[in-house]
């Protein structure tokens, strides 16, 4: 069930966003709302919100303050990110590209995706296949534990398949030519995990995550062609089985290249691009950077939408807010 607040959109469609009220028993999602529209929506649907406000999986909560001063935790960026990653639930695989730079890491976006995917109500039907080129399992385990998600337990429950690629190296740099090693074998592991999950548990929501592409390229001995071969095969899983694919890439590595084919190809492939950048005005205490989400495919058509938020990475979570709403 999906309802749409047409009346909220009709007034000011460009500034105001879209509210997707999915099945109230499972999911409530707010996307791209300015504060005024959000207030209107909250007023209209306050009954539902009040009945759900104690649920821990809710992305935003009501405070004791008046409705107009609703505090957002991760309803803005988090909602969009989750919207972007809800591939299998929306009936088709999606490719999510996360781009960051050395000044501002986007690792928190991946952590958010892992946490949301493995949290109720989706956890029972979710599977994450995580190819880690950047950090060992203990790193992700510590971070996610702080966020309230025990990765070790999820791994034991076969909900989190961790592929440790720290020491991975393609033999003679050839990912496609040599069988039995390299990227072909890695792809084989991923597809095997997908098949086992389907046969055993019938997972409805399978996410493949890669952290990160630039290190995958290093492992492929600098051959971006082989990386693209590998990503193409991962992409076939999104269309054949409905998996979602989320990859992290460091954009500034390619900033001096005249034609960064790897990035361009990924941007063509991705349906959602999440870009994490530092503020143009420099470092700030309260704002750690800005997050831009571009959704090429909306629910109701091929129109692309862009949202921009500022964020602040905290110890256990990330705070998102509109530019200028914090002084």
């Amino acid at each position, binding site marked *: 069930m999906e309802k749409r607040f047409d009346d909220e959109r009709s007034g000011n469609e460009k500034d105001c966003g879209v509210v997707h009220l999915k099945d109230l028993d499972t999911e409530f999602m707010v996307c791209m709302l300015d504060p005024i529209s959000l207030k209107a929506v909250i007023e209209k649907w306050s009954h539902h919100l009040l009945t759900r406000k104690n649920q821990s999986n809710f992305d935003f909560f009501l405070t004791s303050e008046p409705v107009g001063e609703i505090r957002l935790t991760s309803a803005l960026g988090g909602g969009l990110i989750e919207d972007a990653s809800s591939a299998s639930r929306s009936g088709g695989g999606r490719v999510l590209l996360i781009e960051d730079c050395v000044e501002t890491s986007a690792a928190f976006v991946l952590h958010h995706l892992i946490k949301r995917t493995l949290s109720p109500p989706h956890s029972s039907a979710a599977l994450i296949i995580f190819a880690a080129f950047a950090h060992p399992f203990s790193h992700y385990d510590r971070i996610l534990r702080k966020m309230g998600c025990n990765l070790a337990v999820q791994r034991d429950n076969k909900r989190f398949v961790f592929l440790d690629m720290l020491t991975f190296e393609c033999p003679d740099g050839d990912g*496609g030519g040599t069988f039995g090693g390299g990227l072909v074998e890695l*792809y084989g592991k991923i597809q095997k995990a997908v098949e086992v999950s389907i046969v055993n548990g019938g997972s409805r929501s399978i996410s493949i995550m890669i952290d990160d592409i630039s290190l995958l390229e290093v492992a492929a001995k600098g051959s971006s062609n082989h990386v*693209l071969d590998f990503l*193409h*095969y991962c992409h076939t899983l999104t269309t*054949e089985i409905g998996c979602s694919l989320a990859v992290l890439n460091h954009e500034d590595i390619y900033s001096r290249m005249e034609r960064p084919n790897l990035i361009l190809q990924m941007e063509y492939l991705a349906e959602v691009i999440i870009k994490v*950048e530092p503020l143009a005005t420099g470092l700030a205490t309260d704002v750690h950077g800005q997050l*831009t989400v571009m959704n090429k495919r909306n629910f109701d058509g091929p129109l692309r939408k*862009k949202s921009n938020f500022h964020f602040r990475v905290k110890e256990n979570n990330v705070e998102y807010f509109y530019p200028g709403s914090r002084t």
Partner: protein
Amino acid sequence: MAELICRALRDGALDGEHAPALTIKDSIDSPFGPHVFNHVLAQLSANILSAKSQSQLRVLDGYTDPLGWKVRLMECGNISNRSPEASNTVRLCNDVRDLDKLSLSIIELGRELVGQGKGRFSVAIDSRLYYTLSNLAGINSRLFASSNEIKNELSCHAMLSCYQVSCAFWLLHSDLHEVRVTAALEYMSSMLANIEPMARPTNVQRGNSVNLSLLEQNSNKGKFHARLKRRNGRVRLMSEEFCIEPSGIKFTAVSSDDGMITQSLVPKVQFNLQLSEEERIERAKVVLPFEHQGMHANLSFY
């Protein structure tokens, strides 16, 4: 104009001449090539149907397993067979790098449709994703060495001169390939559909938010430039605008308030030759201190 292109594809090749070929070219600033491709494919199919001939579709699937990884993994027992099985309508291609085999497969599929007689078939190459069949059109400048690119173009050329090919069209993302590769394909094509954004980023640096805001401006519309080469050598240039709607792509004439062409004709000087509309209105509002009062108006003294 898009209709003109579709009609030219429908009319097909004349005896002893190359088949008409269309290159659809887009870029990351306006990645709507797939929409145009789908539109052309649908129109061509509808045109064939309206001519009372039977429109059939054969698919050479170079997407599912382009390098044969899945076949090899299945042979080793690492994965099970989940790929769609080859059928009469779909044939799998497990090595898109073998260009001779690939072009042969296309012609074989076409001949299965129309037989060895005088029947003709159309070829559509959807290369929206990474190298899927794109090397046939010579547009994969990355995967293969330069010598192979030339070979690709030759393969494409050979296909156009195949006497049973009625027309061919393909899609390419221009920024993924070397300029000479796209230029060679444009020379080979009798028609070029170039998709451009409504507004271009002034800052050439990639990845900043300014560019993204421009992307939002270009979110569902763009410009459609077409270049048609006639048999006598004349080249016709046309422009349209398009808008992507949930129902499909809609083409419209270039809006009259678009002063791009007029502006480009005005010589570039350091001063303004004309007043803008706003300036003209502002000028009309200015009250001059000694204004002519007219012959019969009351005299005013300042």
